[in-house]
């Protein structure tokens, strides 16, 4: 009985298969050139290197103090046409944190920077540190690299500072291309 059923199934398939072969539709191929387009979808990207700390050697609180020259590097800056990568700075607090014992310390706004020279199409801008807004340090166009080695920070004179030790401020580098 089982054998009969199997035979019946094979018979059905044999009958139906030719029917399936006849049910074809002629279509026009959209492209007969036999080429394949390869598309690399490149996202906007960049590699950046920023200093982690900048020290001011303050030997005279009544005079302004320059930092050593700082390096900031962006490389492999890949952006859509005419867009730029903006580099800016904002202090995380209104004032430096004074050392033990407290007393007067510097305000974030006592820190300024120069319009450094940036390689390739980078444009440096002078600025004053703020804890309310990110102020522009430089703008970079799409390029292999956009870097500086002569960014200089200046800490203003503050003759009312009377406590030696660690006066520190956390500052954020912002990278945006919005």
């Amino acid at each position, binding site marked *: 009985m089982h054998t009969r059923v199997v035979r019946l199934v094979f018979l059905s398939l044999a009958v139906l298969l030719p029917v399936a072969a006849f049910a074809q539709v002629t279509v026009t191929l959209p492209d007969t050139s036999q080429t394949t387009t390869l598309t690399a979808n490149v996202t906007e*990207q960049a590699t950046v*290197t920023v200093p982690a*700390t900048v*020290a001011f050697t303050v030997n005279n609180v009544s005079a302004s103090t320059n930092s050593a020259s700082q390096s900031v590097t962006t490389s492999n800056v890949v952006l859509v046409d005419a867009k730029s990568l903006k580099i800016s700075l904002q202090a995380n607090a209104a004032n430096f944190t004074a050392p033990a014992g407290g007393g007067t310390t510097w305000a974030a706004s006592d820190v300024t920077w120069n319009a450094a020279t940036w390689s390739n199409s980078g444009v440096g801008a002078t600025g004053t540190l703020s804890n309310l807004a990110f102020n522009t340090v430089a703008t970079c166009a799409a390029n292999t690299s956009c870097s500086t080695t002569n960014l200089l920070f200046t800490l203003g004179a503050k003759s009312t500072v009377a406590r030696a030790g660690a006066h520190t401020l956390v500052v954020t580098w912002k990278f*945006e*291309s919005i």
Partner: protein
Amino acid sequence: MRFRILCAVAAVAVVVCHPSTAFALKFSSSFESIHLDARRGDTQTRSFTLTIAKEEHATRFRSKIEDWWTTEDGKQSFYRPVGTVARSCGKWVTINPVEAIVQPGGTLEVRVTISVPRDAATGGYWSVLTVDELPPPGPRAGVAMQFLASISVGIFVNVDPVIRSARIDGVRLAGDEAAVRVRNTGNAPLSVEGRFEFLRKGQQQPVATLKLPKTTLVLDPAPVRLISAKLPAAAALPSGHYLVRAILDVGLDHYIGAQKEMDIRREQPARAPVR
């Protein structure tokens, strides 16, 4: 041998602990804004990636959604809590992970999920994804600034129908820069690009053209942007009377433009004294 090891350990300790040592942070990041044309009730997920260099130390990052805008001249950027901007989409966005430690050579992937509410009003909305480096623990010595890195990418969501509309408020020359003042009069952020053309009277072909940087023009609180660019060199655009034409592409099926006759005075390089 012990003495050598001790010397090496001491040298490393001095380098690590010295307050003025400026360790750099090096990383590669995506800067692609997220653009979404969505319907009410839609949910979509995108991702952001950041890879720190192999030579770096393990670094902790925290991600958040913020509202963002700039001053009219674009020189200052403001980042504020979600809801500060009326057309913020920040409340529709969830991120995962919020905080993570990235090992040297490792990659942070932040998934950004945007769920448009069923009752969202039509128009465009925006916010930003910010990924902040968190400070390593430990006290600092001396007078110093400790730097942290932060990356922000835009999130733009359009809920149809979107009205794209802009108006040029003015064209001006100042120093060696040309600028066009443009106002967003629609209901969605606009991507603005364009150029200046400098034409002599009666001529059809410009003497010089000046490409403008691509700029995002949001709505309140910053619906106006002054888009500027440095004039071409004096050899390409000498002093003279010009018809200055600003042509902007704001994503419509036509350009918008404004033109004005202006005198351009270029500074001549100082001549060497005659002996």
